């Protein structure tokens, strides 16, 4: 027989006690995807749900900076148990790579992703939020292939450049028959409704339009301040009306 990678056989078992699995994704980088993923996870936890946050942007992770993660390490117990950070079961490659740059090519991204999905013991969760890398590369394709029940939430900015890439991503996900919760428009500079209209043309729900908030930068690493930002408030509403 050909050599078999045994790891993929246990992935859905590891996630068997997880309720909804939501991949927060975008066509392009720099649209606030990690902020949406983090504030969504915090909003769900604030409602009393058990929530995990998994940073899958392996080459440019940032959720640990948003949360202000310091000096936490996963524990070993028949796998890897994510540490609890601000009420979230938190997993990131940062636990293992520290602040070193981890230059990973596609095959390495797939391997690291499969490894962490196969060995992470999430336990019982109501929600697992995944912060995806931008685009439609290996991580998105692997997550769709390996994680049954995956749903996507897509983030864009008002820029046509950003939405063009969203359109491609939506087409791919629709071809793969992956459910899409809807689209969040972030960093709005005016009241234009173009993204909302374009989203509806794609047959998707427009979840919210978030105005550009200059306070966000000062809230990085401080979740008390983060909870007062426009983005956190609006994502809380999205969580209340579209997710829980």
């Amino acid at each position, binding site marked *: 027989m050909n050599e078999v990678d*045994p790891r993929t056989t246990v992935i859905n078992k590891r996630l068997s006690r997880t309720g909804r699995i939501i991949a927060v994704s975008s066509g392009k980088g720099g649209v606030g995807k990690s902020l949406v993923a983090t504030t969504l996870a915090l909003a769900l936890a604030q409602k009393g749900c058990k929530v995990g946050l998994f940073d899958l942007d392996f080459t440019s992770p940032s959720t640990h900076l948003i949360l202000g993660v310091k000096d936490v390490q996963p524990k070993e117990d*028949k796998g890897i148990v994510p540490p609890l950070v601000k009420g979230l079961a938190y997993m990131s490659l940062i636990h293992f790579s520290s602040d070193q740059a981890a230059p990973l090519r596609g095959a*390495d991204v797939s391997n690291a992703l499969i490894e962490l999905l196969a060995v992470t013991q999430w336990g019982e969760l109501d929600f697992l939020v995944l912060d995806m890398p931008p685009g439609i590369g290996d991580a998105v394709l692997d997550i769709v292939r390996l994680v049954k029940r995956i749903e996507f939430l897509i983030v864009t900015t008002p820029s046509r450049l950003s939405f063009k890439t969203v359109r491609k991503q939506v087409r791919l996900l629709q071809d793969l028959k992956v459910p899409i919760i809807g689209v969040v428009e972030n960093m709005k500079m005016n009241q234009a409704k173009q993204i909302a209209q374009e989203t509806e043309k794609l047959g998707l729900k427009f979840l919210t339009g978030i105005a550009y908030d200059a306070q966000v930068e000062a809230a990085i690493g401080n979740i008390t301040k983060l909870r007062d930002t426009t983005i956190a408030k609006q994502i809380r509403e999205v969580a209340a009306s579209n997710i829980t």
Partner: protein
Amino acid sequence: MHEWALAEAVITATQQIADKEKLKEIKEVHIKIGELQQVERDIFRFALSQLKPTSLKNATFHISTAKTTLKCRVCEHTWLFNKRKLDEDTAEAIHFVPEVAHAYIKCPKCGSPDFEIVEGRGVWLENIIGVR
């Protein structure tokens, strides 16, 4: 222990293959472990023995080790991974996720972190011998 999760994956994959091949009993399971992941052999073997289901009760596990070959993508230099050159924390990080080797190991010839793990990464199921 992390080895338990990997052992569970081996058992699950073995069972799936046995079901597909309609094997009534499994006699031998051949597993290859790449040096890079530094799997603790005794813990892994113990976990396999504890996790094996009835269909595997008479199975013996044959575990071989594959040396880890790394090849620089910049200068094409090829070299073997050597755990002794790593500090304890780095070795442990690579044990959990072998790909983080890219954050710590550099080509000994040109210093590039852009290398390929040619062979000897982690756990592979090589062969299963059973009776139909």
